């Protein structure tokens, strides 16, 4: 299935707005959490909003403004969204533990899985597509 340029723009705009909303929610959550954390801060909480903003809103806006000659296929798109979600959740959970004054070796799983998902989506997107 090939999408028209206007359909791609419409989808990208929608995606940019969704990621922007997630960024705003993350920033809001971070502000509230930091407010009640008795002056204990964590950069992972402060900058958790950056993952959906930089990883989601900005690329989608780029596609809207400059166009997208080769939109990603469904599977790389899914892997990419899962990767960004994992980065964001991992950042917030790491921050919650840091602010409490503890840590867990399990938080490294978030970063490893997020990297794996994002990289594999990029590799899939860049690899030559089979013609059906």
């Amino acid at each position, binding site marked *: 299935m090939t999408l028209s340029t206007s359909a791609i723009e419409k989808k990208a705009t929608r995606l940019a707005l969704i990621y922007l909303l997630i960024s705003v929610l993350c920033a809001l959550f971070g502000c509230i959490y930091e407010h009640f954390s008795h002056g204990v801060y964590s950069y992972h909480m402060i900058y958790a909003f950056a993952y959906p903003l930089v990883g989601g809103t900005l690329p989608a806006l780029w596609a809207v403004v400059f166009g997208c000659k080769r939109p990603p296929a469904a599977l790389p798109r*899914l892997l990419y969204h899962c990767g960004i979600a*994992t980065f964001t959740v991992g950042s917030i959970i790491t921050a919650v533990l840091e602010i409490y004054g503890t840590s867990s070796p399990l938080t490294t799983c978030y970063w490893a899985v997020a990297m794996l998902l994002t990289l594999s989506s990029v590799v899939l997107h860049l690899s030559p597509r089979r013609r059906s």
Partner: protein
Amino acid sequence: MERKLRIGGLLYALVLTLFTVYVLLDTFVIARVETQVPSTPQISTTPTNVPNEGPVISDEGPDTPKITDRTYRDRNISITLTEYREHDTDIYVAEIKIASADYLKTAFAKNAYGRNIKETTSDMAENNGAILAINGDYYGSRQKGYVLRNGILYRMDGDPKRQDLMIGKDGDFRIYSEANVSANMLSSFDAWQVFSFGPALLQEGQISVDKNAEVDQATTSNPRTAIAQVGELHYLMVVSDGRTDRSEGLSLYQLATFLQTLGASTAYNLDGGGSSTMWFNGNVINQPVNHGSEVSERKVSDIVYIGY
């Protein structure tokens, strides 16, 4: 295809949510006992280079202690509680003189070493027959940092960022960095108790924190718990309130300055915030805050106490 991928996305969201719930449960809830501590002290835990019965502090024997709401006196232990008000904060100081380092003890929640094993300072104090107790370093909230209690080494994984307090079997305080001292070296130091929290507040009578020093990534004044040595077998246990309308809390520097004015030579910061609790003879002395600014005791991993 699109539908299958949508289902895949939902499944991944579910997996991510379940994993996150597990991480939180594993960190905060699921208890893991690694070592059950014997209820009666083993022979190896008894300090060897100090006499069990030291100099007589007062005329009373251990069986007939003289107790008031602010003092305790018997043959081996003397405790006096005093309340101060500094920097808009209530500070509770227990001055302790003991005949032997034997009486400066620690206990784990539920008498077990492990992760997420917690009890209130009061419960631990009562279960161990303490006379006076304060919260310890909350070792259970961290993966690393030496844990050596009553002469037994429980955790050998060091945290190079930590500055430790070691109480020797002679009762003297020593400060060291875990970056410079291995766990194996602790036995050669005749360590009786080791706390891995910090930082050190006073060393050789001099303030060893700067005005902006804080615990990890904290930025504001808080409730505090500290332990200090004044002289031979002469100590201070200090707890200050905070996070309440009445008490603003202390910075580490303010706490260090306060302890210096009391004549302490070595002082060390223990776990503070909601953990800060002082218990004496059946009562919580300070106003511990938990869940924000609610006055209630937090469950912690360990206590430092004076008792038999």
